[in-house]
């Protein structure tokens, strides 16, 4: 049951791919076998710090196999990689388009991460 996860802003049919991973409003979980789409609120969103860490923990706990995101912080990427999750660089905008692009093998692997943003 391969699960693909995307950080999203907005919910339901109006949701878009979120530019932020740790501060995304929610995660869209797409089951590539059943085609089922579910959403769950991002637990990292309300964190005062370490949002990316919290969000990555959630994605690991969901049992995700693949994450599609425009960008990722280094801490989140470390957790996701340790969890054996394949990372791909998503497009922005419509979530269905991004999933379709992933399924068609058009998304490049996400290899670059940005430094963590813990405020002083």
């Amino acid at each position, binding site marked *: 049951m391969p699960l693909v996860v995307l950080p999203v802003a907005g919910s339901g049919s109006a949701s878009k791919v979120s530019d932020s991973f740790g501060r995304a409003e929610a995660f869209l979980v797409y089951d590539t076998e059943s085609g089922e789409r579910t959403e769950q609120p991002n637990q*990292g969103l309300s*964190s*005062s*710090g*370490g*949002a990316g*860490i*919290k969000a*990555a*923990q959630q994605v*690991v706990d969901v049992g995700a196999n693949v994450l599609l995101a425009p960008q990722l912080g280094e*801490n989140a990427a*470390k*957790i996701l990689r*340790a*969890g*054996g999750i394949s990372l791909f660089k998503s497009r922005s905008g419509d979530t269905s388009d991004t999933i379709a692009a992933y399924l068609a093998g058009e998304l490049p692997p996400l290899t670059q991460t940005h430094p*963590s943003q*813990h*405020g*002083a």
Partner: protein
Amino acid sequence: MKIAVLSGKGGAGKTLVAVNLAAAANARYVDCDVEEPNGHLFLTPTEVAAEQVTVTVPVVEAATCTGCRKCVDFCRFNALAWVNDEVMVFEEACKSCGGCAVLCPSGAISEELRVIGHVHQGMVNSVEAWGGAIRPGVVSGVPVVQQVLRSLPANGLSVIDGPPGASCLALETARAADYCLLVAEPTKFGVHNVRMIHQLTVAVDRRCGVVINKATDGDTSVEELCAELGLPVLGRIAYDPQIALANSQGLVLAWQDDAQRQVFVDILDRLGAVVAQ
């Protein structure tokens, strides 16, 4: 008596004001801009006593850990994660509360020290020069600022050169002070900055006054804001290329001649009067 010199941005003149007030008063100068300390360019002690600043971070013994995740769920700073059957520690997110080690039912978590910076002090003429600095790459200087402020002797006058802006570092500095001195340039940006740092001082219940640096006759917007907020203007340092030149050479203005010293003595006098009110 501790006076915190603050401003909404770097380059407003915090170090100029703090160094020269300390020099004019033969007081203690304290550099709390631990991310980019620069007071030592003006006050350079020949003999320095330094002590390390350390924080504790959790270390998890994988063989003893049962994977209950109590530590991960407890940490509100998200410094711990559970992945691939082990706890992952993110030291830069840790606030050293030690709660995870207390909670761990199997005793798998111990704490180790990490050196994140240092506190130093030394004499320059009759000025006791203190300061702190974080190690490059360290994310938060808050523990360093706290250790500097905790280490200060209670006696005498301490003029604290604060970190720029309204960050946690500035908040810690303001909170430790008896009175805050805001340094601002007479510009729209300066007005914005005074308003911002004034809010910070209100948040920690500290009174404040304002010194206008690079003052010209043209722009009175900072004075107008001070009148609106009820803040005393405790001094004006003229916009003067000679000051900029002396500053660029690392000279302490208050030690150059009586006229320059008097500018800061006047600020000290007005400061003493408002603090006593």
